[in-house]
């Protein structure tokens, strides 16, 4: 799973249901505005996640009563996110241990 895919899944887990703009802004915020995302890139990623069955979408009304497409996690998507998060944490712990070792030496 790509990094962007994981960020999107995580965002949806936190925010529940959200449209493309909201997802992109949230990712920017969470990354401490370090990530200057080209917002357009979320759309192919959202399509891919939908094709995999990890998210689904429907039309809804945004805050300004504008028609927007809202995305949310599916059960399968939740499971995929949990799996990925576990892998990431394990990887992070491993790297941390390696670095500790390197510093100690």
């Amino acid at each position, binding site marked *: 799973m790509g990094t962007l895919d994981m960020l999107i899944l995580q965002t949806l887990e936190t925010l529940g249901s959200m449209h*493309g703009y909201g997802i992109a802004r949230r990712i920017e915020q969470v990354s401490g505005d370090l990530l200057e995302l*080209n917002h357009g890139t979320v*759309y*192919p990623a959202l*399509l891919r996640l939908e094709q995999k069955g990890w998210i689904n979408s429907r039309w809804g009304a945004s805050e300004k009563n*504008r028609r927007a497409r809202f995305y949310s996690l599916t059960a399968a998507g939740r499971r995929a996110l949990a799996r990925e998060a576990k892998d990431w944490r394990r990887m992070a712990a491993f790297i941390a241990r390696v670095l500790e070792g390197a510093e100690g030496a």
Partner: protein
Amino acid sequence: MSRLRLWLARLFGIFSGSRSDERLRSELDAHLEMLIDENVRRGMSPSEARQAARRSLGNTVRVGEEFREQRGLPWLETFFQDLRHGLRMLRHYPGFSLVAILTLALGIGANTAIFSVVNAVLLNPLPYHQADHLVIVQEKISKLSDQAIPLPAPDVITFQQQNNVFTAAAAFQNEDFDLTGAGRPERIHAARVSWTLFPVLGIQPLMGRTFTREEDDPGRQVAVLSYALWKQHFGGDPSIVGRTVSLDRKPYTVIGVMPESFVFPLEGLESYLDLTPAALWIPMSFTPEERKAFGDRFDYGFIARLKPGVMLARARADAGVIVAGIRRQYPASVRSEFSLTAAVTPLREAVVGKVQ
């Protein structure tokens, strides 16, 4: 599982084209509006806000391309586009198209024909030991027809006794029987064969043994089973050797079973005889009447193995001498009416002759 879903979605995505483009466009428009609103809230002027928003959104053309690539199967879609283009070109140049299509048709047709022959001749091995040394002997009576015909029983014996070119030879004839005495009564195709048949073909039985000379001449009621019959009618009974079966209510003792790959006779071995592969084999055991039927009842197939180093031409010459001797035995009055010759054909050719 999600991978499967992904690929299916992409396959169907090929067809969802314009609706999907619509959807992306409205989403991008909405997204842009929301960006502009935020920028205005931050204090930018409308035109600044719009410009900044465009920058944030990024290259929408590029987004559209990536989106479309993700949606379908680009390589497949490109292929179809090329195909449509090609078909358009063909319509524009009908003369050229016609030539191209005819050439392809001829090429494919010729290729298929050649392959079937090669397949039959080279790639499908005959189920006998060194099958390239096996030949069929027949006679030709010029007055009657050009077609080679089976031998009469006395000629079978003459060829067996007088030849110099065969290690061994055997005669065969199909016969049907009612098989009773074990399992369901069944009508089967069987074959009477000389005791030398199995040595000529060079295949050992799977179980038991094949005929001895005495079982052929004077003859005994014994039978060798085919693998198929043993499996299907006798349920693969491991103690089949020694059991008695009835053929047309006469008792025969089973002395052996042949391996699964063994088939005899093969189609093509004799044009005039009914030649379904036999379910079992019994000794030829010529009757006194058959032995006397000179120049009559041309009923028996004849298969022989060439001695090592003997070429077909020599075998033909030898057969020619033998058949000349046979001809001389016909009454003088009859002899002048026709010419009798021998036809020696390699087994492979005789069988392939069936390939049209």
